[in-house]
């Protein structure tokens, strides 16, 4: 549990809890720094096409690549089944990025002369490094039966399964009837698995993972969820032949993609289902390119306490997985537009998030809400621009913002947890072929988070600014 102590009418985080908060923060950015599913050179080898056919600049999909994915990794030429491949062909690719990066933290809590976690300092870390690795195996088992299996490691070599799914495509010869089962990326048009930036701060979308703070220094612990995280469940997806119209609906475990019915934070064991719905329509405007507008909704619920626990030898009761009850609602809604003016494109996204007051205040649903509790809600925005000079050079710029519209407690400063994030960079692909991919990756990202902890020096809420500078050699083969 998070430890609170009253001071001047405010709840304040104790020093060990502050350290825990920072540990979580650092762990989070480390985890997000793992490579997601992305470009798959095994497909390029299979079909003899350069990366640029399916990717405007890998890993960002082109409309052609999106249709290929939506068609179950098939071109539809009666040549997709593995029976047509040379028996020596293996549908496997790997991706990893050696890099040099500089991380800067402003307002970081550190040990001081006053004891542990008693000071606030700015510090930098830098050096050569490497990311986690994805082993990307994907393709068809037979016509209209496709798979994606991605064992993925962090930079220490600890593996997990990022994706494990089987897809039945074109059921009844209809492109409107495709079923996917397993662990998969949600049908996000702005795919975090194909994000163009990789650094600790810029390697994920803030809006996809934001959860409000209970109070400054007290993160929401009732559940863990990220719309950018791969989830476990079943998805129906349909699309028009030319992929202009796309719709999908998913039924998902409320475990944020974790197996064995365990919620991401190890709290109340998961026993809930969630739904994700997405739809979009593309249209042409003259010779500017293909424009697309769409919307999505994630409607989830998660237990707030466990019905059954068992106590181990250490005397600590442990929730029995899958027995959580007291489900509470949370949801995320969004609108997205993808606008093209020839080589320039801009993605705009509006995001709205809402958690129940029980989730927002870490209160089990069988207990009364604390005084002043509210259901937190917030608005978010994303603007990501690209200039694709040619298939071998792309410039990237992204700005995200998150603004709380309702705090979990009315005593919180109104901007507690607000986020601004700016990322820019470019990727240069010195060669382009159908066997492998390589990019010089250059990126700078800076994130401002407001009032997310209580300063041990001033005793008042304070924000953190962190930035990343990264030069990487991103390769996949």
């Amino acid at each position, binding site marked *: 549990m998070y430890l609170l102590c009253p001071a001047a009418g405010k709840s304040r985080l104790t020093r060990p809890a502050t350290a825990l908060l920072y540990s979580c923060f650092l762990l989070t950015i480390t985890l997000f720094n793992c490579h997601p599913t992305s470009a798959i050179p095994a497909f390029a080898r299979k079909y003899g096409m350069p990366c*640029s056919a399916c990717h405007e600049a890998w890993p960002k999909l082109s409309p052609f690549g999106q249709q290929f994915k939506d068609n179950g990794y098939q071109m539809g*030429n009666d040549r997709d089944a593995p029976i047509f491949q040379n028996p020596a062909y293996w549908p496997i690719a790997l991706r990893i990025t050696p890099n040099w990066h500089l991380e800067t933290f402003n307002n970081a809590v550190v040990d001081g002369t006053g004891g542990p976690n008693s000071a606030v300092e700015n510090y930098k870390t830098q050096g050569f490094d490497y990311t986690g690795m994805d082993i990307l195996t994907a393709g068809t088992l037979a016509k209209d039966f496709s798979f994606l299996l991605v064992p993925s490691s962090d930079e220490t070599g600890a593996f997990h399964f990022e994706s494990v799914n089987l897809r039945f495509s074109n059921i009844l010869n209809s492109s409107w009837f495709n079923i996917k089962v397993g662990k998969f990326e949600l049908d996000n048009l702005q795919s975090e698995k194909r994000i163009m930036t990789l650094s600790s701060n810029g390697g994920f979308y803030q809006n996809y993972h934001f959860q409000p703070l209970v109070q400054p220094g007290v993160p929401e612990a009732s559940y863990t969820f990220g719309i950018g995280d791969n989830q476990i469940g079943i998805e129906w997806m349909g699309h028009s032949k*030319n992929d202009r119209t796309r719709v999908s609906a998913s039924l998902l475990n409320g475990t944020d993609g974790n197996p064995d019915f365990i919620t991401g934070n190890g709290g109340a064991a998961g026993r809930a289902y969630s739904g994700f719905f997405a739809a979009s329509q593309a249209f042409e405007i003259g010779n500017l390119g293909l424009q697309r507008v769409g919307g999505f909704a994630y409607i989830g619920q998660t237990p707030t306490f466990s019905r059954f626990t068992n106590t181990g030898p250490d005397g600590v009761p442990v929730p029995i997985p899958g027995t959580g009850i007291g489900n509470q609602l949370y949801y995320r809604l969004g609108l997205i537009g993808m606008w093209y003016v020839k080589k320039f494109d801009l993605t705009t996204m509006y995001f709205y998030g809402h958690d129940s007051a029980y989730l927002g205040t870490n209160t089990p649903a069988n207990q009364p809400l604390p005084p002043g509790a509210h259901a937190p809600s917030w608005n978010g925005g994303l603007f990501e621009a690209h200039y694709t000079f040619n*298939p071998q050079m792309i410039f990237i710029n992204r700005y995200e913002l998150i603004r709380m519209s309702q705090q979990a407690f009315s005593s919180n400063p109104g901007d507690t947890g607000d986020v601004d994030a700016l990322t820019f960079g470019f990727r240069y692909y010195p060669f382009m072929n159908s066997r492998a991919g390589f990019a010089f990756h250059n990126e700078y990202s800076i994130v401002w988070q407001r009032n997310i902890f209580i300063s041990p020096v001033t005793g008042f809420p304070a924000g953190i600014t962190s930035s990343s500078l990264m030069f990487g050699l991103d390769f996949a083969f």
Partner: protein
Amino acid sequence: MRTTTQLELALSLVALVFVPILAPAQQMESHVGKLTGNSNAGADLYYRYCWGCHGARGNGDGENAPWVQPTPRNFVAATYKCRSTPTGTLPTDEDLYNSLGRGFITTNMPSWITLTDQNRADLVAFIKTFSPRWKTEKPGDSIAVPPEPALTLASIQHGKELFQKLECWKCHGPEGRGDGPSASTLTDSNDQPIKPYNFYTGYRFKCGTSNSDLYKIFMSGLDGTPMPSFADVVKPEEAWDLVHYLRTLQIWHKSPELTLWESTPQGAEIVKAEKVRNTYTGNPIHP
């Protein structure tokens, strides 16, 4: 004098080297309906999507060409299978545009229907810059496709007779399975082995899916392949009879022709025998 000659020689060499580079690339346009394709815009698209197979110079020698069968189209030769124009002539812009959108089954050429209409028109314009034929020749006139006559048993029976008389079976096989006595000897214009169309497993054709597409294939031929044009030996109504009969060979693909054919004792017996003869799984693994 000597200095002047050396200077002229030097200038000539410079011109020889740089003039081809500085000279504007051959400009082309395409016209498809209300669209006007521009070859400059098409070049960007070509070097994003197409060069891997068709090659930087459009002569079909892309880095993947050695592993692609059938070999990628050679745009310099400008010989195209799918046309609405008579054999030996250039296709219309719309023919090329439709080919891009349709793709070619049982080949590595996918459908590019996800590109915008303008993109495809631009690509057509650029593809035409590879061959001098587009500067010296005009596309042929589109073959007229008369209205399809009413489907009758007599039409199917006559088509069956034509299938024998025109010796279609020599390549396509007696039951249309692409296993005729000549099938194993066929080569395309690149001297590469080529297989005749297998009606038994196929449900789409390289140049379309409709009856009128099949009609055009007879009448225009597939240039660059052993499939000739029958425009000079088959009357339009006879071509339609052939279309009706060939549809009955696609026994796994429901069509009005197959339904009518199966309603006769002879047709039902043939179709049943064909279905029993092969354990077709619905997955066309044979081209």
